[in-house]
């Protein structure tokens, strides 16, 4: 049976082509940035080289690979039979694939990968004079994005909607797309990736913003984990796999959302905190600082 389950892949051509297209365009942009002519301004060239660092290509491609695994592997296929698989899929999509993609700072690299004629309309939409930029900035402001993320998170865990998504593949794709887009926007603000339509959040604001979504995530996870009866009736009508009862499956899924699902936000906040500490440590020592005076006084006491 294990072999049968491991061979349960849903190779969706539209997903393979879309991810392949993104991988090729990113690679082309990355190669073009690396091959910038020496005549370019030195500082600009360094910035472009930094954008085209090897680890950025690696993280972006790892993000695409994670997307492919979460959308086509047995994790996706068995999501309809095991709640814990479906939860794993959502965590892979939103907590692994999205940060990996954004760490690759895809926007400028993908722009360099596009033909010039395709780049122009995108630049025109995002330019300061564009009539679209302001409304776009409004609907993607940190507050609106936070609200959209929380709404998607709570809304899709409603039993009626969740059951519908498991029964109807179109609604299921819509669920994944809304999770992906809202989480992409949330992590976009957290990581400060391009395009920058808003004033950047300060390090402190980023920590608060990151941590602020954790309680909702944790509460939903805890409610699912400790529910006294099955929440999603769909799982009552499918054969049980791996010897797990409906309630055991539901409890593991809830714990997955509660702990690993919240953990990634804590890690992000911790990294920002480390950056603050490092930045403080790099500041020059004030020679006339009060504590130095105190120290001298203490030393001079005989």
């Amino acid at each position, binding site marked *: *049976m294990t072999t*049968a*389950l491991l*061979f*349960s*892949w*849903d190779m969706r*051509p*539209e997903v393979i*082509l*879309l991810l*392949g*297209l993104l991988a*090729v*365009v990113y690679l*082309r942009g990355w190669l073009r940035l690396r091959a910038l002519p020496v005549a370019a301004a030195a500082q600009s060239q360094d910035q472009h080289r930094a954008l085209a660092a090897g680890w950025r290509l690696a993280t972006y491609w790892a993000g695409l690979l994670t997307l492919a695994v979460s959308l086509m592997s047995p994790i996706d*296929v*068995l999501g*309809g*039979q095991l709640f814990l698989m479906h939860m794993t899929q959502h965590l892979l999509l939103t907590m692994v694939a999205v940060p990996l993609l954004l760490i690759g700072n895809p926007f400028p690299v993908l722009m360099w990968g596009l*033909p*010039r*004629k*395709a780049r122009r309309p995108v630049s025109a939409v995002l330019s300061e004079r564009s009539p679209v930029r302001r409304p776009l900035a409004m609907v993607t402001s940190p507050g609106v994005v936070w609200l959209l993320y929380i709404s998607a998170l709570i809304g899709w865990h409603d039993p009626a909607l969740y059951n519908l998504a*498991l*029964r*109807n*593949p*179109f609604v299921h*794709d819509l669920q994944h797309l809304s999770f992906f887009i809202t989480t992409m926007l949330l992590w976009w603000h957290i990581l400060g990736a391009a395009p920058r339509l808003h004033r950047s959040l300060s390090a402190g604001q980023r920590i608060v913003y990151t941590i602020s979504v954790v309680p909702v995530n944790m509460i939903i996870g805890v409610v699912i984990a400790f529910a006294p009866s099955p929440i999603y009736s769909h799982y*009552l*009508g*499918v*054969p*049980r*796999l791996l*010897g797990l009862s409906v309630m055991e499956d539901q409890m593991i899924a809830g714990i997955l959302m509660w702990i690993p699902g919240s953990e990634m936000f804590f890690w992000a906040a911790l990294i920002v905190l480390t950056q603050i500490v490092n930045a403080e440590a790099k500041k020059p020592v004030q020679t006339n600082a009060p504590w130095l005076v105190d120290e001298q006084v203490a030393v001079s006491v005989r």
Partner: protein
Amino acid sequence: MRGRSWTKKLDFSQKVQLLTALLTLALVALAGAAPIQAHGGGTPQLVQASSGPYQLYTWTDPDPPRAGPIHVTVALVDPATQQPVLDANVQIVATPGEGSQPVTALATHENAVIKTYYEADLDLPAAGTWQVTVAHSDTAGSGSAGFALDVQPAARNWRPIGIGAVLAVIAIGAWFVLKNNGQSTV
């Protein structure tokens, strides 16, 4: 040979553009061509139905069922071990209330995305109430269970028109790009 000399004239950047355009066209065509089917799921029709030595689960897609292709997913489970039964012969027979001939299909693992399930497509020619019977047999024995399927008339298929419209937009865009291609290089 003529095609080869034509591609030879393109520089690397133009080849990448051409490849990207072809990939985009293929993406649109593929996304539109394959109907969305609930592999390994859909609307439950039989849940834990006793059938010979086993329990039977059956799902159909789309919801509501319409005249045309109906995707049927079947799971056989051994009630003693709760393990899926993997090597049975599974046949699905849909019998119309009146008029049309019965439609038969063999459900197999090859057609299934979840390899512990059996899947088949039934092409139902007309609307009405169809009696669907799922029959299975293996060394442990045989059995069958059935359900009534209320099939609606076929819906108008807008898919080809949609795909055609998207392809036309892409073709017009590509024509504009190629028309001005000689004036600037990427």
